[in-house]
């Protein structure tokens, strides 16, 4: 399994105190992506210029001449980089860093269990990404975590193989299921894929009796229309085991990570939703008798 990061003491990814595992790789390409470093399935290099001490070790070691360090400039020529990882090994400050660590399901479970003593009754582990359900080994990992007595929560966009989803579902305590957009064309524009397979997976999960919370990211001008939330309400009512809808706010922080990857800064301040938009979305859902989480 390729792990982008394991974060501890998480309080925003499900009930209680949790450890969140971010897996690498996602088939979708949401324009607003908060975690661009988890989009690709392969390991990648990141350069955090704020941490760079300017020692030149990476320049010296790079076989491709991709590391640029001058009086005025500090960047990595992404098109030259062959991803050998030598710079990350040489860098004394972790300014150069490889994201994407190979781990076995056992290793991931062990890392998660290091904090088991802190989870109390409510907490546990959250599998996120990327799309965790597209990670090889997830079918081994999830039952393993369950066997160790942990509360397992999966954050998914549902863009995965149905058969795999069905195999994993019995061991998952709760799914946080992203609804990117309810208009098929817009869904494609914004994520690069049509929603059909995703909606099919959502219905499948529900038929299996999985506990589901829907999540909608509010992106100003992209996912804030009235009709969208009316359709979300309809979707909620079509499900038997859905506990409600959570409204999330877009933030442009993903942009800083895109920059570290050598990509254009994708963060857009104008996408931050207004309080009024959030209030309205909540109001529509409430009018349609949908329980909401803010």
């Amino acid at each position: 399994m390729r792990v982008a990061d394991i974060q501890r003491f998480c309080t925003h990814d499900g009930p209680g105190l949790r450890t969140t595992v971010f897996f690498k790789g996602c088939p979708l390409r949401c324009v607003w992506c908060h975690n661009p470093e988890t989009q690709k399935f392969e390991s990648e290099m990141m350069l955090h210029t704020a941490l760079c001490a300017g020692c030149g070790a990476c320049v010296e070691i790079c076989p491709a001449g991709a590391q640029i360090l001058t009086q005025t400039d500090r960047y990595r020529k992404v098109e030259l980089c062959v991803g050998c990882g030598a710079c990350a090994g040489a860098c004394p400050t972790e300014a150069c860093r490889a994201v994407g660590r190979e781990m076995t399901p056992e290793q991931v479970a062990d890392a998660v269990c290091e904090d088991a003593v802190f989870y109390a009754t409510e907490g546990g582990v959250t599998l996120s990404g990327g799309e965790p359900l597209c990670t090889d080994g997830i079918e081994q990992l999830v039952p393993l975590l369950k066997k160790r007595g942990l509360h397992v929560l999966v954050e998914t966009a549902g863009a995965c193989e149905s058969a795999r989803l069905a195999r994993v579902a019995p061991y998952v305590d709760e799914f946080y299921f992203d609804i990117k957009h309810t208009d098929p064309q817009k869904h494609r524009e914004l994520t690069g894929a049509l929603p059909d397979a995703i909606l099919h997976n959502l219905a499948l999960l529900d038929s299996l009796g999985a506990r589901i919370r829907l999540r909608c990211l509010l992106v100003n001008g992209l996912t804030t229309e009235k009709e969208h939330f009316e359709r979300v309400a309809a979707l909620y009512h079509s499900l038997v085991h859905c506990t409600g809808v959570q409204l999330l706010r877009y933030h442009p922080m993903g942009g800083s990570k895109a920059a570290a990857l050598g990509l254009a800064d994708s963060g857009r301040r104008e996408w931050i939703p207004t309080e009024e938009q959030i209030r309205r979305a909540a109001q529509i859902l409430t009018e349609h008798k949908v329980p909401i989480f803010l």
Partner: protein
Amino acid sequence: MSEYIFPSAYKEGRPVRLCEATRKFAMESLQGKYGTETALYPFVHVDCIESWDDLNDHQKYTASLDVLVRECPLRICEGERVCGAATLGAGIRHQYPAARGGRVFWPSVSHLTVDFGVLVREGILGMRECIANLPTESFDEVAMTRHHALLATLDAMQVWHGRYIEATKERYPQLHELLLRVPLYPAKSFTEAVQSLWFGFAFLRLGGNWPGIGCIDRLLGPYLKRDLAEGKITMDEAREVLASMFIKGCEWIETDTARGSGDAQHYQNIVLGGTDENGCDVTNEVSYLCLEIVEELGISDFPISVRLNKQTPKEFLRLLARVMRHGGGVVAVYNEDTVYSALRAQGYPEADIHDFANDGCWEVQIPGKTYFSYMPMDFLHLLLQDVLHVAEGEFVDFSDMDALKAAYAERMKQHIEGTCEAVLSGTVPAWREGSDVFRLAFPTPMIDLFEHGCAESGRGYLEGGTPYVVISPHMGGVGDVANALCAIDHLCFIEKRMSVPALCEILRNDWNGQEQLALYAKHKLPHYGNGDAAADAYYAWAVDAFADACAKYAKSYPIAFPPGISTFGRQIEWMAHRTAVPHGYRRGEILAGNTSPTPGTDTAGATATVRSYCASDLSRMTTGAALDIKLYPGTLEGENGLCALEGLMQGFCALGGYFMQVDVLDVQTLLDAREHPEQYKTLSVRVSGWNARFVTLDDAWQRMVLERAGYLPEEQA
């Protein structure tokens, strides 16, 4: 809604339960109204006392105390529910506030928790009778002076009390009524018990002493339970009464304090919860009220520690988490299991173990029975200076890590032995020649009244009168010792980059010319505090080696030297004599406090830090080992935030932690407080085991707090 807003790191602010008059009183007190007033009247002149030179020290003490209680200003505040005030400013400076020729002449006592229960249960008159009836036939002349001093001190308390009775007569009928009964007689109700406790506390502080209160819920809980059952008081009324005591406890906060290492507290600790000798949890209504009061007012002047155990009620833990979330580090926790093991191993009788409180910071002691002090020792300096000889340049070439560790352990042993022997031969020569009295520094009859053993033995608090005399060697810099050992092992033996002398030469040059290697050591090598078993093993070794070094003197008589870990804030003053360290920091950089990781090296989060801290056998640290954890308010939002804090505390206990201080800091708030100190008068932060108002800290301290909060000043970024 209330007109008075008490600052909180949590965005939803603090609850409002107390009445507006009480909140106004709290705001005034916290903003320094009474402290400023107190500072203006530092002491009472006792030049009037005749034949001064013919008096012995105890007679001088009690004669001046008599003048002091007659002449000190009285203070009765509008809206207060309990009466009495320590109004002499020299007390704030830790001095006995009597002066001859315009100068004070004695210091006062701190770092102890006394037993105020004696006063609450027996009253002044009961105490007097008890002391007057003690068998004194065997007392020599010295002991008799102590005996008379105790009686004279009780008389002085009564004179002071009489003045308050008189002063409340006209305008404060309720207080007057209360004072007519207590603390003269045993308390019969909750309100009387609070008044009695407060009066004793204020009396000791009037004499300049800084006592702790200790297990207040054990003392007051039964009174409140009875009153509630009999319908004599409601919880709301009880909260107002107790709040009055908390607010009055802030009467030493000044508006403009000299900046230094922080002023906000005078070791007036309170301990809540825990189990009794039957193993039952004692958390009661008073425990809840105390936490509710600090939750509402953010008062940090009574540093509170909660004794956690498997029976701690869930609702109490929840309330505790809520208080913590507001920041200020007002409430800390003990893991009772570890403390009990430590105290048992030290040989304390079971009955005393269950009473434990602390010295005002967190060093555990048996209240009302212990003389306590500690000896701070910089163990990082010991490594750099006495083992590696970095500054002198006469380096030793160690063949492997075991040889280095052995040399260091031997040096620890010598250091402890030398220090303990020096104390014993310097302090207790008289004792060695057969006397019971081993230290005559200055008289302490006010304290002796509330310490078991003193009246009975005719010996004072500083003279071996208490059953236990403890001077705890405290290991400082353990986090950096661990990181230094780990770095030496990696650079010199595992990676074989250089010999130990070569590394020492680099340290002597303060890493100049080796910046890249310094960065590597600082960022890439494993560090203590990240839950990394290999790195934590160096820490566990250091703690064990220190405990072994202390073993010979830990239970010695008449002074015991059991070990503990602390720096409090000394990592700041130690900066000056420390050289650069193997883990990449240069001379003059702020290093780790208490048992915490080196700032900037703990990147794996709070749970990992707790795991690392618990990787050593902390029950060997008899008087304690404090861990400071710092969290951001953003991670503690809503229900989940509270669950997270509870989980953190439960994990801390399950893994065998000793003492943990959770502070919730918001970097933005702190930066803003730096810019506009006048707007943040009451913003309190806990720094290394005790708390202080942020604006009273000088620049180096503020920088440390900011760095702990994850803020890197420009020159480092």
